[in-house]
C-alpha cells in the first residue's frame, strides 16, 4: 500500500509548528517526541504504521479551531483521530502530518429526555453515551462491535453501523447535529435538537466523510427508550441457500427483527472450539432477535419459527431465559476472538443484496481454494453486510499480500452482484484503490468536489478514500500554496 511521500519542507518546519501549537494548547497537549508520537503510528489496521510528525490533544472546540488555523497557515496535513479503532486505516498518519486526537473531549454536555437527545463532546466513547442515559431507560442505538472503545467522532466519520441497524439504522439516521471545525479554523453549527435540515442536508454528507471535511467536536444524538425486552432464537440449516431463503421469507412476512446474524460452517466450527456455545454443527446458522413485551416476543418468535420450520432446520432453539439468550449470543460475539486464536485475520465488510448471499458464499469458497487461505463468514444477514474473515500468517512472507489480493477479489465480487465495497468500516487507505471498481471517475469527481468546498487546500486527511492518482493534483496544490 502506497502513501504520499512526506514533504521535506514541512518536516523542516516541525519545531516552528510545534512551538506555535504550544502557544495555544496546554503544555502536555502537544506531543513531538519521537518515542511518544509512535503511539499514534496506526489504528486497528495494524498492518500499516507510520508515526506522525506531531500529535495534539486539544480539549475544546476553541483549541481545535486554533490547531487547525495554525496547521492551515503552515500548510501541514492534519489527520483527525477518535479512539483509533478504524479497521480501514482512517487514522493512519503520514510522516509530515499532525494527528489531532479528540480523546480529551469526552464530556456529556446536555441530556434531554423530553426531546430525546443527548449532546456530547465527540471524543466520548459510543458505549458511554448509552451509559449516560441508561439509568432512565434510554439508549443510543448504533452499536458497532468496538463500542466499548470507539469514539463518537469516529462513528460520525465512518457512519458506523452495528448489529441492530436493521431496525434502528446507522449513525447518519441517529445524528441530529454537529459542531464542526473547518480546516481554516471556522466553527460551524449544523442541525440541532430539531429534525431535518432547513437548507441543503450538510449533516448528511458530513456523516461518513472520513474526517476529510472537518473535525467534529460536539454531536447531538437521538436517544430512544429501551424496549421492554428482547429474545433470540437460533436456527441451523443444511445449506447457505436455505438459510438465505429463510431470511428473505422472514422479512417478507412483515416481521422486522432487531438483528439477523448469519454464520457459516468454518465460523461455527472455530467459535465452537473457542467459546463452547453449544452450536449445532451445520452449514449455516442464524441468530434472529426480536424485541417487545413478553407476549409480543412470543408472538413474533412463533411466526419466525413457523417460517423456519418450512425450511427444515436441523436445529431450532429459542432462549428460555436470559442465560440461554446469552449462550446463543456467546458464539457470535466471540467469533472474532476465536479467529484471532487460530491465526491473524483480515476482516472485510462489503455489503451485498441479501438475495445474492448463497451465490456470493459459494464464490468465496472457490476463491478460498484458489488463494490457499481459509475464510470464515459471519454476517449481518438482515442488511446484507458481510464480514468475511480471511485467515493468514503475518510471519509468513507473502501471506499478507495474498490475503489482500483475496480480499480485493471478494470486494469486487460484492460490487459485481450489486453491493458495495464497505458497509460500515469505511474506505480509509484499505479500499482506496478499489474505488474505481464501484464508481466512475466522474462519480468520484463529484465526491471530491465536496471536499474542494469544505477543505479547498486538501489538508484534512488528504490521502484517504480516493485513489491516490485521482487526488494527486489536488494534494500537490496544497504543497504549491505553501
Amino acid at each position: 500500500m502506497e502513501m504520499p511521500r512526506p514533504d521535506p519542507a514541512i518536516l523542516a518546519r516541525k519545531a516552528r509548528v510545534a512551538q506555535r501549537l504550544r502557544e495555544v494548547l496546554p503544555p502536555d497537549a502537544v506531543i513531538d517526541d519521537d518515542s511518544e508520537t509512535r503511539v499514534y503510528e496506526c489504528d486497528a489496521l495494524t498492518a500499516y504504521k507510520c508515526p506522525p510528525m506531531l500529535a495534539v490533544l486539544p480539549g475544546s472546540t476553541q483549541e481545535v479551531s486554533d490547531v487547525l488555523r495554525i496547521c492551515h497557515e503552515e500548510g501541514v496535513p492534519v489527520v483527525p483521530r477518535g479512539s483509533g479503532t478504524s479497521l480501514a486505516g482512517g487514522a493512519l498518519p503520514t510522516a509530515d502530518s499532525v494527528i489531532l486526537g479528540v480523546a480529551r473531549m469526552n464530556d456529556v454536555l446536555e441530556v434531554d429526555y423530553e426531546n430525546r437527545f443527548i449532546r456530547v463532546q465527540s471524543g466520548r466513547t459510543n458505549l458511554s453515551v448509552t451509559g449516560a442515559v441508561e439509568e432512565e431507560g434510554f439508549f443510543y442505538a448504533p452499536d458497532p462491535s468496538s463500542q466499548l472503545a470507539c469514539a463518537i467522532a469516529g462513528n460520525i466519520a465512518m457512519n458506523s453501523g452495528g448489529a441492530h441497524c436493521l431496525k434502528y439504522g446507522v449513525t447518519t439516521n441517529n445524528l441530529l447535529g454537529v459542531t464542526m471545525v473547518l480546516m481554516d479554523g471556522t466553527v460551524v453549527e449544523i442541525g440541532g435538537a430539531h429534525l431535518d435540515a432547513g437548507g441543503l442536508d450538510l449533516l448528511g454528507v458530513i456523516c461518513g466523510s472520513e474526517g476529510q471535511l472537518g473535525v467534529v467536536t460536539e454531536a447531538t444524538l437521538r436517544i430512544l427508550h429501551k424496549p421492554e425486552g428482547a429474545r433470540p432464537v437460533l436456527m441451523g440449516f443444511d445449506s447457505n441457500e436455505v438459510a438465505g431463503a429463510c431470511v428473505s421469507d422472514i422479512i417478507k412476512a412483515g416481521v422486522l427483527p432487531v438483528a439477523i446474524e448469519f454464520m457459516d460452517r468454518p465460523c461455527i466450527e472455530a467459535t465452537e472450539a473457542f467459546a463452547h456455545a453449544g452450536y449445532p454443527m451445520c452449514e449455516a446458522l442464524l441468530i434472529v432477535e426480536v424485541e417487545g413485551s413478553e407476549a409480543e416476543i412470543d408472538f413474533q418468535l412463533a411466526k419466525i419459527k413457523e417460517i423456519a420450520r418450512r425450511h427444515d432446520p436441523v436445529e431450532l432453539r429459542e432462549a428460555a431465559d436470559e442465560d440461554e439468550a446469552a449462550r446463543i449470543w456467546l458464539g457470535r460475539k466471540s467469533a472474532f476472538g476465536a479467529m484471532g486464536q487460530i491465526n491473524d485475520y483480515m476482516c472485510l465488510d462489503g455489503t451485498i443484496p441479501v438475495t445474492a448471499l448463497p451465490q456470493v458464499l459459494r464464490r468465496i469458497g472457490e476463491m478460498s481454494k484458489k488463494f490457499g487461505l481459509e475464510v470464515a463468514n459471519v454476517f449481518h444477514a438482515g442488511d446484507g453486510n458481510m464480514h468475511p474473515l480471511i485467515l493468514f500468517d503475518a510471519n509468513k512472507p507473502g501471506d499478507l499480500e495474498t490475503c489482500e489480493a483475496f480480499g480485493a477479489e471478494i470486494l469486487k465480487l460484492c460490487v459485481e452482484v450489486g453491493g458495495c465495497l464497505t458497509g460500515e468500516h469505511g474506505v480509509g487507505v484499505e479500499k482506496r484503490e478499489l474505488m474505481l471498481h464501484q464508481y466512475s471517475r466522474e462519480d468520484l469527481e463529484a465526491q471530491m468536489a465536496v471536499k474542494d468546498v469544505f477543505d479547498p487546500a486538501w489538508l484534512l486527511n488528504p490521502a484517504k478514500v480516493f485513489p491516490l492518482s485521482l487526488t494527486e493534483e489536488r494534494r500537490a496544490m496544497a504543497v504549491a500554496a505553501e
Partner: protein
Amino acid sequence: MKIMTPATEAELAELVAGAYGPLAPRGGNTRGVPVVGDILSVAGLRGVELYEPGALTLVVKAGTPLAEVEQLLAGENQRLAFEPMDLRGLLGTKGEPTIGGVFAANVSGPRRVQAGAARDFLLGVRYVDGGGRVIRNGGRVMKNVTGYDLVKLMAGSWGTLGVLSEVSLKVLPRAETQATVRLHGVDVKVAVKAMAAALGSPFEVTGAAHDPAAAEGPVVMVRIEGFEASVAYRCARLTEVLRIFGDVSVLDDPDASAVIWRDIRDVAAFHGKPGDVWRLSVKPSEAPEIAERLQADALLFDWGGGLIWARVPEGTNLRARAGAFDGHATIIRASVDTCSRLGMFQPEPATVAALSRGLRAKFDPRGIFNPGLMDAPVEA
C-alpha cells in the same frame, strides 16, 4: 416558458448540457415551487428497475408516479415508511406526485418521528448535474459507507444540485393494523408534555400529533401500529401513560385511524382556508412558546410538537414573529412575491450559507437549476 419531457436519462443529460437559460427540474410540479425558466420534467422517466421484497429494496426511475410505487408495494404488504405527504389538497395544485419529487423535497409525514425521514430511506441515486454529466452515488444496499454520501445531499436539495433520474430505496413491511389513542381537552403545553411521554415510552409510537382546533375540541393523537395483539397491548399501556394528563379514549378501528393520520399528514384542516401556510421544524419542548409568538390563524402540531403547521394572513413574515429558535421555518404556500421577498427557506448562518453556496457552485457551475430558490432572500 417551455416544458421539456425527456424520455431517457441520456436525453435528460443532453438537454441539460445544451441548456442556455435557467431550468426548473420538476416531477409532477405539485409542491408549489415558483418556476424560473423552462420546466424540465422527469415525468417521462418512469418504471420499476428492480423490486426485491425479501431484501426490502426498490429501484425506480425518478418520474414514476408515487401512487404507482405505493400500489406496487401494497401488493407485497410493504410501504414507504416515511409516509410522504400529498400537497395537492393544501396547495390546490394538480398533477401527479412523483417518487423523484418526494426525495428532491425530502417529504416525510407523521411517521418521520419514529421511522425517519425520506432521506433516511434513500439508498442510492442517479442524477444529472449542472454540466450534463450523469452521476451515480450510493447503491441498493442498506449499509454503504463507500465514499461520500451524496445521496443525503441530493435529498431535500429541491433540484438545485442536480436532476434525479433514478432512486433506490429501502421499503418496510406494512403494519397489520393500527389504532389511535386520543387525549382530550388539553392545551398546547400539556399536549406537548403528553406526546413527549408517549414518544419516550418503549411502546413504539409511530405518530404523535395535536390538533388544538378539532371539531370535538383540542385533541392529542398517538398512533400505534403492528400485529393486532401487540397493538391492543400497547394501546392499553399508552392509555396508562396518557391518563395522568386528562381524558383518554382509544380508536381501534384501523380504517378510521388511517383517515386521521392521512389528514394530519396532508394538513387537511387547512384545506380550502385562506392565507399563507408555513412549516416549522423546532425542538418539541419549545413548540408551545414559539407557537404563541406566531399569532397564527390556525395551528397543527405533528412530530410530538417538533413540526408546527401555521396558517397566517398573506404576506406575513412568520420568521420575524417566531424570533430566534432552534430549527427552521419554510414557506409551503404563499404568493410568488412573498416567496421571493422572504425566501421559501430559512436563511442560514453566514458560515453554513457559504458552504451551501460553494456546493451549488460545484454541482451546478452555471447556476441553471432553480436559480435563487435556496439562496438567502431579499428581505431576510
